[in-house]
């Protein structure tokens, strides 16, 4: 049947399914159930052990299309796009969801323009339109000033990237069964023009802000580079990643991968602690969909307090050390 299936593009790394893939399954399961259709997880990568593909079924997929080949070890958009475009023309899905990650936001537009599909970026909400069965895709735009709902009435498939962490991962159900369909990688799909020749971590530290449950972020109020240590101590206690506003990067106190906001990363952690950040609209655009926001700022009128669930108007150099001491004491208490 044409244009019926709901697909998710599962991401893997080092042979493991990434969390974002389970978030996509949670959303896609609801859509597929509403439509009364099949949910398929597409895995392109290498290596992808059978048990990991099985995990996708236990988390909600009815079937897995698995394309694993050494040429797919790293995300090279030309190769991945060739695989995906071929699968689409063979199986003709109605909806395709991918994570709004660095690879999802590269792969999806690359494929969508080629097959003239509608594509909506960085969605935070998805639903099915009554009557038509069209996918309703809601996303923030203009720096989060508006929420736009978009649909693709005539073209198929309807494609969307979904903001990571904007929903909880699907629950695992040991009893779920489904089929894993292995699809051979056709060497004609191998593009070969682009080579990945290296990889390095950022200064040997973890700056994967997009995957962090908790982010402790600092702004201009840090006053100087050495004071980043104040944040790092709190981050260490909370098991958090360290982020910052644009000013901090522009002043050279932290490196760009830490930057949250319009010209940096968009994050949706469970907890975002903003210290010495005034709350410029460009910064808010990158963090205001966090579950819980705590703000610490000297200025009681700072814009950051408008988006905060819990605000402390006070000197971060007094509040954070006191908070650290309190947490150190608390830890281990029943």
């Amino acid at each position, binding site marked *: 049947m044409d244009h019926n299936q709901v697909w998710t593009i599962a991401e893997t790394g080092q042979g493991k399914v990434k969390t974002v893939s389970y978030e996509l399954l949670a959303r896609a399961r609801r859509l597929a159930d509403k439509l009364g259709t099949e949910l398929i997880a597409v895995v392109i990568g290498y290596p992808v052990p059978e048990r990991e593909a099985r995990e996708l079924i236990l988390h909600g997929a009815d079937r897995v299309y698995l394309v694993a080949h050494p040429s797919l070890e790293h995300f090279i958009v030309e190769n991945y796009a060739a695989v995906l475009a071929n699968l689409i023309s063979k199986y003709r899905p109605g909806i395709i969801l991918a994570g709004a*990650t660095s690879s999802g936001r590269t792969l999806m537009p690359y494929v*969508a323009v080629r097959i003239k599909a509608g594509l909506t970026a960085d969605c935070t909400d998805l639903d099915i339109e009554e009557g038509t069965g069209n996918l309703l895709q809601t996303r923030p735009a203009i720096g989060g000033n508006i929420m736009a709902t978009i649909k693709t009435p005539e073209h198929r498939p309807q494609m969307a990237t979904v903001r990571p962490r904007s929903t909880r991962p699907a629950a695992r159900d040991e009893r779920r069964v489904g089929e894993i369909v292995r699809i051979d990688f056709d060497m004609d799909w191998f593009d070969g023009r682009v080579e990945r020749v290296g990889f390095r971590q950022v200064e040997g530290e973890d700056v994967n802000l997009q995957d962090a449950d*908790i982010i402790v972020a600092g702004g201009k109020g840090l006053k100087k580079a050495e004071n980043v240590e104040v944040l790092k101590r709190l981050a260490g206690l909370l098991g958090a990643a360290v982020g910052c506003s644009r000013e901090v990067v522009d002043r050279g106190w932290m490196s760009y991968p830490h930057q949250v906001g319009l010209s940096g990363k968009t994050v949706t952690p469970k907890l975002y602690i903003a210290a010495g950040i005034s709350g410029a609209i460009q910064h808010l655009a990158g963090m205001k969909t966090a579950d819980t926001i705590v703000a610490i700022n000297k200025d009681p009128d700072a814009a950051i307090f408008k988006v905060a669930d819990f605000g402390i108007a006070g000197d971060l150099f007094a509040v954070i050390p006191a908070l650290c001491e309190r947490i150190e004491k608390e830890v281990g208490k029943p």
Partner: protein
Amino acid sequence: MRIVVPIKQVPETSNVKMDEKTGTMIREGVESIINPLDLYAIETGIRLKEKYGGEITVISMGPLSAEKALREALAMGCDEAVLVSGKEFSGSDTWATSYALSAAIRKIGKIDIILAGERATDGDTGQVGPGLASLLDLPLATYTSRIVELEGDRIVVERLVEEGYETLRLPLPAVLTVVKEISDPRLPTLRGKKAARAKSIPVWDAGAIGIEAASVGLKGSPTRVVKIESPTVTRKGVLLKVQDEDSLQEAVDRLVEFLRRKELLA
């Protein structure tokens, strides 16, 4: 070397106003600027030109008033500008925009590198850069944070991904979408501004770039905006003021209690 930089004119995001009825942006009275993330692409192009020689063509699709953005890019040091404009383009989504710009870039002729901002600050999609690479069938690196080297017809770049930096080697011509880390944009000089004023900017409509008018604009766009809402920003959280040691301890106590209740403390 022929460098093409596609840019977009966007409203200054810090004071956006929406027309509640139509769900469109009120552009009147709002300053229009070059998409801030495009400045990094322009600067990267200028640096490549300074090092290796060549010419930079800056191109934009938009209303006639987008000429202002193109002149700013010329003032920074780009050599030529092209405006893709006409009523047939209005309402274009990222598919139609990618399609129109790819046709316009083909018309420019032989090129070596396309440098684009990672996304525009108004639409926030980041889809047109990859779209161009796909339609022009050029190799692509997104989130490019550094050009490591350019030798002959190969370019080596680093791209910023979630886990760190990845190094890619691409044959030219290629498309790079760039992030802020790649460069520090210069300001236009007085001399640059003067030179920019003297340049003529051709305006290309659909006919000029050899595409059907119906293939772009709202007609040519797969997606439709159904609804626009202004989300409520305010969370109405508590705000505690710290004035002395006592209020500091109280604030910290209540914060710890708040985090515990939310199960955010281990």
